[in-house]
């Protein structure tokens, strides 16, 4: 078989093979990953909200596309902690909501420049993550989850009442005025010409840049020796310690980095909505990010983003469906289908945790591997047949 593999005479089979081989080599490169992400980010709102047939089927809209990217940044950061370092935090609402409040308060009192808002929100989240990480990481396993949960709830109740003079309590932070980017570009305005058709608003472009940046940073971290240590800790903390790694420091850094991502996302959330709901600090928000990440596939780069898309799509679009019908027949299967959206998500989530712990991305990956496997087998068979045929004549 190996001789035949090396033989370049079987033309058509091999063209596919080399093309595919080249792709296999390319797809792991940082440039490819970031480039493809950028392209997808650029066409996503068009496909989702404006393209002729597709968007009519999807019923998406511009603002939801922006929201998906924002939560996507949050999920990528969360996955660095859960999927790659193996730490399940139930307190990330503190960083998301904390950054959202910090950005909003800065916008109200200092400057509404979007860049200033993102920087201050992220800075706040990173500092908070440092302190909370330092305290929560003293215990592992479930105690870590419960400690992060406790601290985050503490912040929720602080924002709800003792700090209401800053946060506006139960009503959420209203009256946030987001200024224009660099003093000239209004974020809610449409991007001119072709850019407007693809991207829609400047806000989306602004968020999109952060999203691509987040992917690049996360990819760089994960494929560096530093990220390798994260994975080593996830696989076997004790062994990582024995090899001489300072596990505590790496865990703290993973927590802080992940908090930083949540901070970027939280600040963007304030810019997007010009409002911070008190709910953004509540622990169900932490639960949401857990559900999204696990649903999509913890421990993969894009799985969590897929999970975010699915979750927000079900929450915002599927929940408005009046009746579930069999396509083209008009037979109603379930009336008030949208009413059950959260229940549906819960059931899917339990099923995913139970049966496919690597999430939807894991399923896709296995399908891809299956296809590659079948493809290469078919190619080999083709090659063998053409050689046999050649030998016979």
């Amino acid at each position, binding site marked *: 078989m190996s001789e035949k593999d090396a033989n370049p005479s079987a033309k058509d089979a091999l063209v596919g093979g080399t093309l595919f081989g080249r792709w296999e080599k390319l797809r792991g490169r940082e440039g490819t990953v970031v480039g493809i992400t950028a392209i997808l980010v650029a066409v996503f709102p068009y496909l989702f909200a404006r393209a002729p047939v597709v968007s009519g089927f999807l019923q998406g809209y511009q603002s939801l596309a922006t929201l998906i990217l924002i939560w996507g940044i949050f999920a990528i950061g969360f996955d660095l902690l859960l999927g790659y370092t193996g730490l399940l935090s139930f307190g990330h609402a503190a960083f998301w909501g904390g950054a959202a409040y910090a950005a909003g308060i800065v916008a109200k009192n200092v400057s509404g420049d979007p860049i200033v808002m993102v920087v201050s929100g992220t800075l706040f989240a990173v500092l908070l993550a440092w302190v909370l990480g330092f305290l929560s990481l003293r215990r592992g396993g479930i105690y870590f989850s419960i400690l992060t949960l406790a601290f985050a709830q503490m912040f929720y109740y602080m924002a709800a009442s003792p700090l*209401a003079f800053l946060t506006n309590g139960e009503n959420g932070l209203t009256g946030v005025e987001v200024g224009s980017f660099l003093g000239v570009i209004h974020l809610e305005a449409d991007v001119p010409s072709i850019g407007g058709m693809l991207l829609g608003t400047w806000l989306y472009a602004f968020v999109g840049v952060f999203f691509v940046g987040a992917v690049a940073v996360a990819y760089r971290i994960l494929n560096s020796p530093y990220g390798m240590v994260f994975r080593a800790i996830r696989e076997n903390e004790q062994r990582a310690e024995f090899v001489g790694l300072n596990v505590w420091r790496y865990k703290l850094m993973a927590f802080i980095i992940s908090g930083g991502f949540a901070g970027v996302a939280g600040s963007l959330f304030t810019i997007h909505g010009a409002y911070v709901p008190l709910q953004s600090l509540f622990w169900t928000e932490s639960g949401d990010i857990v559900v999204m990440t696990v649903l999509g596939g913890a421990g993969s780069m894009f799985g969590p983003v897929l999970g975010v898309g699915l979750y927000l799509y079900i929450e915002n679009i599927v929940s408005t469906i009046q009746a579930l019908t069999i396509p083209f027949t008009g037979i109603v299967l379930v009336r008030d289908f949208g009413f059950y959206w959260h229940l549906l998500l819960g059931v899917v989530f339990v099923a995913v945790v139970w049966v496919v712990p690597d999430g939807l991305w894991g399923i896709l990956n296995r399908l891809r591997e299956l296809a590659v496997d079948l493809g290469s087998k078919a190619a080999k068979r083709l090659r063998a047949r053409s050689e046999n045929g050649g030998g016979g004549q």
Partner: protein
Amino acid sequence: MSLLSDVLVILLNGLQQGAIYVLLAVGLSIILGTLKFVNFAHGALYLVGTYAGLFVALNVPLSNGKLAEWGFSSFGLDIGFLAALLFVPLFVFGVGLLMERYLARAFYDRPDTDQILVTFGLAIVVQELFRVLFGSNSLPFEQPERILSVGSFAGIPVSGPIALPIVGNFPQWRLWVIGITAVLVALVYLLVEYTDFGLVVRAGTRDAEMVRLLGIKITRPYIVVFGIGAALAGVAGVVGGPLNVVNPTIGTNILVPAFLTVVIGGVGSIAGAVLGGIVFGLTTAALVSFAPAWSQVGLYAIAAIVLLTRPQGLLGDEEVTP
């Protein structure tokens, strides 16, 4: 009102508040300590207990949710609170058995995070199921006036104020909550500490494999422990229901304080759960009177302080790996 009576009122209110936490925490704690199973769906059992209690004890009109749409205008058997206190724990015990057999057992050998995730998912499913059936609005769960009123016997009054020495008038129902909790927790304690069943359970906590080697079928005590924990959550739902609002989110809302109670008391320790619950209850009650804005923050602050200074919990003796 003298200072002494203020303090006593805070004590009683704190004990009552703590009692609900204790009921939940004892169940959580024995499940976590014995089965090493992290149950984020414990709040869902509380939710089931509350609605089941409502169903047995009263007959409330429904205006929202699918049940109302399907033509059920009211909901309940209306056979009295004592019946609820009797049947609901049995029912939730059954739910607990099913949960152990068909959910928990599949996850004993999987990582802690998977247990947290799957039970958290289950909690969402149960909460949403109740939201679909009964709507998001709160249902009225009135405190029972009297219990045991049969025929000409007027029954024992359990609600309304009662005159206590020094304190003055105090809502009687709160005392009943404290009393019921004390009796149940004492029963569980006796069961675990002084019976053969308890001996097997405690041995299993130390070394499950050794118990199995000695020829004892450990799965049966395990499933019963899970059931007892669930039943306690059910009782908490029944006695706590009339004191709080009843809506589908109560389960997830009570879960966090209940878990913290377990952790600050020390996992696996019944006495620890009781102590933790009382500490939480008293703190909340004291802050409600003196600094209401901080009443919720205090609970979490105490939890954080205890865990940072005594990671194994107040009465825990397990070894703690950093």
